């Protein structure tokens, strides 16, 4: 009897294999289990043994060809005289015997096409109205209540004559308009909602599909520090009515001091000058150096200025303690130290708390000006703007003259619950005066 030599499944995920070479020729006599050919798959290489003794009558696949599992590779005529029964052919794969997802299990089939990713189209219009009895679904009950419909008048096409949502929609579309007047009492099975005038728009907002999830978008969960910042920002805006005021500051004397220090080998940025000036002005305007506790204002004895530092790990705000008692050079050295340690993550939590006033310096790319958010529970914050050379009009010996000066917009935000305009404006004006006077001793 003629039997098939089939391509076996060599591993659960393997769907095909390549015939490497034949070890026998057509017409040759073979013993049971004698290797007939070598095959190679993604997972393993193997020899295929003969399922039976007999004569190879036909070789159906050439070396190098790729064949699916269960494909017939060769045919063998078994010796009828031999007592060996012909082995049963491997089960045939068809729609009835194959496994799970139907046609997909046919291992030799073409590759499964990738399902598309489609975006939701515009939301479906809100469904129309109706009312009924017998057996209805929740959505039909709702539609009936909304539109004051008598469901017994709508032919049902669902199982057992059930009125489906589609039936209701078609009824309405075909002009089966709801009665002109207010509907009768709500139908027995509808929710016990008050009757809705038929002309009223459905009480629900149109049902929208969710926003499309664009492929390739990256979702970046908030880090703990980002969460803290977010919570803090929202809380501050909700807590304090912010007033933002601006001063235009002539920084040429500050620039002069910087240039002089540079000659002495000390590099100073603009920031320590502003810290110095602010500390001095805070000492003169105690209300600006306060915190809010419940319904009290706490005027702080010490002046601890929190200064924002940008690091790889996000924004950190170390606190410069007793800033009003520090010299310009001490402030500068402390800031350099903070900057270096913030970047290496070596600032202790103690150094990040206890501020009584804040200063933020967005640096050379800080733009013209900005309106900072108060660092709760403080009541004020200063923000440096970009320092830009501008032509300005000044008084030179009683004459108006145009000169070029490094100018900076300085913004101050204050908490209007606690600070009135006079105090807030007075403070910022004083900071400007100190910076323009150029005396930082």
């Amino acid at each position, binding site marked *: 009897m003629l039997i098939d030599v089939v391509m076996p*499944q060599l*591993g*659960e*995920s*393997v*769907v*095909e294999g390549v015939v490497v070479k034949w070890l026998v020729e057509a017409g040759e006599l073979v013993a049971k289990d004698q290797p007939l050919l070598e095959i190679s798959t*993604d*997972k393993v290489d193997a020899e295929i043994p003969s399922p039976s003794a007999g004569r190879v009558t036909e070789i159906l696949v050439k070396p190098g060809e790729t064949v699916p599992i269960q494909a017939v590779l060769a045919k063998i005529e078994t010796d009828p005289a031999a007592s060996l029964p012909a082995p049963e052919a491997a*089960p045939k794969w068809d729609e*009835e*015997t*194959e*496994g*799970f*997802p*139907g*046609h*997909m*299990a046919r*291992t030799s089939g073409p*590759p*499964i*096409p*990738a*399902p*598309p*990713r*489609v*975006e*939701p*189209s515009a*939301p*479906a219009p809100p469904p129309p109205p109706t009312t009924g009895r017998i057996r209805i*679904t*929740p*959505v*039909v*009950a*709702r539609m009936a209540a909304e539109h004051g419909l008598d469901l017994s008048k709508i032919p049902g096409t*669902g*199982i057992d004559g*059930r009125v*489906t*949502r*589609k039936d209701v929609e078609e009824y309405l579309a075909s002009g089966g308009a709801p009665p002109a007047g207010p509907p009768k009492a709500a139908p027995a099975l509808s*929710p016990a909602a008050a009757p809705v005038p038929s002309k009223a728009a459905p009480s629900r907002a149109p*049902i*929208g*599909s*969710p*926003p499309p*999830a664009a*492929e*390739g*978008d*990256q*979702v970046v*969960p908030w880090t*703990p520090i980002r969460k803290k910042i977010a919570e803090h920002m929202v809380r501050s805006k909700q807590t304090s009515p912010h007033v933002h005021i601006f001063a235009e500051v002539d920084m040429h004397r500050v620039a002069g001091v910087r240039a002089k220090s540079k000659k002495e080998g000390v590099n100073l940025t603009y920031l320590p000058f502003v810290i110095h000036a602010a500390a001095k002005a805070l000492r003169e305007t105690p209300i600006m150096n306060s915190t809010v506790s419940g319904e009290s204002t706490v005027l702080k004895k010490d002046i601890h200025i929190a200064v924002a530092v940008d690091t790889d790990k996000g924004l950190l705000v170390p606190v410069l303690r007793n800033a009003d008692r520090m010299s310009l050079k001490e402030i500068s050295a402390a800031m350099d130290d903070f900057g270096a340690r913030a970047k290496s993550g070596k600032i202790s939590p103690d150094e990040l708390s206890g501020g009584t006033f804040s200063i933020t310096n967005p640096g050379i790319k800080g733009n013209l000006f900005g309106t900072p958010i108060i660092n709760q529970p403080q009541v004020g914050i200063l923000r440096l703007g970009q320092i830009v050379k501008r032509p300005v009009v000044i008084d030179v010996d009683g004459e108006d003259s145009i000169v070029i000066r490094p100018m900076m917009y300085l913004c101050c935000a204050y908490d209007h619950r606690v600070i009135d305009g006079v105090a807030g404006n007075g403070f910022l004006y004083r900071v400007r005066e100190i910076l323009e006077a150029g005396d930082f001793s």
Partner: protein
Amino acid sequence: MLVTYIEAIRQAMDEELARDRNVLLMGEDVGVLGGAFKASAGLQEKHGADRVVDMPISESLIVGAGVGLAVQGMRPILEMQFIDFISCGFDQIVNSAATLRYRHGGQTACPIVIRGPSGGGVHGGLYHSQNPEAWFCHVPGLKVVAPATAYDAKGLLKSAIRDDDPVIYFEHKFLYRRIKEEIPAEEYLVPIGKAALRKEGRDLTVITYGAPVHAVMKAARDMATEVDIEVIDLRTLLPIDWATVKGSVRKTGKVLIVHEARLTGGIGGEVAARIAQDCFEELDGPVMRLAARDVHTPFAPAMEAYVLPNQEKITEAIRKLAAY
């Protein structure tokens, strides 16, 4: 480029190993052999034996070592040779990995990925056909994903590796070499927590994931003249993209949930319950489920077909729901 599902997985690991020195691959036979299914073929040669590491046959050890490495800042990918054996590492997953962030008040994380071949339809018998995703969807602190396409297999695995929480990644072995799909040559990510709308439709919604996505899509095409089906591929099972699910249910009013895992205690129960609670007044029929029968997956092909959902059962369920 045209790739198989398993090649997409291999590429994702290759790219992430190259991108980040902290990424490791550990598992039984993942190194010299390149994985039992060849998912990591060539990776040890390319990235070194200290980064693609052959492990003893002990899933508990593999996960436990991975958790320790993750706490120290590494991002190990832990392969289960068959996902069936993930149960040997169960304690390390649910009591150790999933609770780390909670136990430390959010101050530490456990960026591990546990991945491995799941699913039946390949006559693998009961120890090589399981779909144990529901066990893990009950555990806060874990994320669970199950891609159905090569595109998603790659994009979700890369997202999983970069995620700071433990992600269980179920790859379906039936799809390994049966899918060949064009995917972008340039790098992309698929976000965790977003379902994919595979097809829009008006009449009813089929919610599914993993290998059955393909059978459901075939049904949607074959039955296009009788019923207009909307198909949602969940992709992420924890957390589920409820916005997409509910948006679709509100539109169609009828829902069939299809999964290859067993019915009782499966993901479908949770999805159905949420829909019943949150979309009750939009429902125009019972929420229906089609899943494996509540028995172990048999080896014999005819019995396996009887137990698992297949094309015919899907078509029948859709027809029944559409007529309701």
